[in-house]
């Protein structure tokens, strides 16, 4: 009995030890392959899609935190192949073409599927074309934020945010006008 227990414990320790490297930081072979794929495979009409380097840097930063396995790599590449067909069919050669052809949601769908393979979720905040408030949010299975990216701008807003002032100003103006109109109406009815 003791021998069996000892044997089980050794197996458990070995299992844990074999799992730990799967959470090691760094960009592994499969992640490097995905980066190379994204940089080179997206060719439309013989022209590689031009994506600014900083987007690859963002991808590197995300890969540095996770470890993609061979199975996950194969699944992701299959999804990216499908996304490539959409790019080719719509002749997308620049990032700006995505919004121009209205394929943002379709491509976001593929990005969601690819991230789901890793156990992550992709959501958006605001309008993506809005430089100040448009945001891509990647969360893990527990809902913890893994990354937030402004897809349209690298430099974020570092001064006062006057959005609430503008919105509240508009609401105040609307309320004043509405009150004025209703008072005028009520007076007219009373006079009649």
């Amino acid at each position, binding site marked *: 009995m003791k021998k069996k227990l000892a044997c089980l414990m050794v197996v458990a320790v070995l299992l844990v030890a074999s799992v730990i490297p799967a959470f090691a930081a760094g960009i592994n072979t499969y992640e490097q392959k995905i980066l190379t794929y994204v940089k080179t495979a997206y060719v439309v009409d013989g022209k590689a899609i031009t994506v600014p380097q900083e987007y690859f840097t963002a991808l590197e930063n995300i890969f540095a935190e996770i470890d993609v396995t061979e199975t996950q790599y194969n699944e992701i590449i299959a999804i990216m192949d499908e996304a490539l067909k959409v790019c080719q069919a719509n002749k997308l050669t620049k990032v700006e073409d995505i919004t121009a052809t209205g394929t943002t949601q379709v491509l976001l769908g593929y990005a969601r599927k690819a991230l789901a393979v890793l156990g992550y979720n992709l959501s958006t905040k605001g309008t993506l074309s809005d430089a100040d408030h448009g945001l891509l949010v990647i969360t893990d299975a527990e809902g913890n934020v893994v990354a*937030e990216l402004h897809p349209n701008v690298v430099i*974020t807003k570092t001064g006062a945010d006057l959005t609430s002032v503008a919105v509240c100003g508009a609401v105040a103006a609307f309320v004043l006008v509405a009150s004025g109109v209703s008072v005028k109406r009520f007076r007219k009815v009373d006079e009649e």
Partner: protein
Amino acid sequence: MKNNPEINRSKKRYWKGFVLIPIAFLLCGYLLLFAVLTPILDPLVSVYNLAFSNANVQTITEPGAGSIFDGGSGLSSGTLNCDDFSFPKYGENFGHITVEGTEVDTQVIFGDSHALLNRGACVSLFGHIPGCGKGVLIGAHYMPYFKTLPDVKEGALVHIETTYGSYVYRVYRTDVSRYDNASAYRTELNGDKEILILYTCDLNGAIASTPNRFFAFCEFVSGPSVNLYE
């Protein structure tokens, strides 16, 4: 003696004059108060949160082993492989920055969402972390973190202590450009040299919204190099 239609009309007036209009004006009054006070209260609430909420307390206690707050690595040269240190998690306070000749002295956070910008200097995911030999992009709110950054002189040293090493950079150029003018920083950010780019709003002491950003470009002086590739 009043007839029925007259009684109905006066009842209607009574309801309108003493019930509906006062309620409508009460609601309008509250809406007006909300609309007028929100822009004033919002900044006060955010300052209160910054000063008294648990956010700052959490950011001080958050870093794990090897944090600069409990001694740090103190490593200022050599090479770190991905297994030698833990890559910062999104939203983690993993360092501290000071800039010579200014009052810039704040924590460094990985990620640069609006919420994180309320906590200190933020490292953009569009750039690398210090030590990778490539562009590092750090931005912070003018008030209170980078208010004195525009006072920096060329040649001033920038010190960044991180959980995995101590880095020193030297300011070699400053510039003012619009936030959406990528050509102002893209070469340095995506180049093969380690360049630290610090930025904040170019306000000249005013409190307002501006599309202009003050940039300080800094060359690498010392610090351990980081190899992220396995």
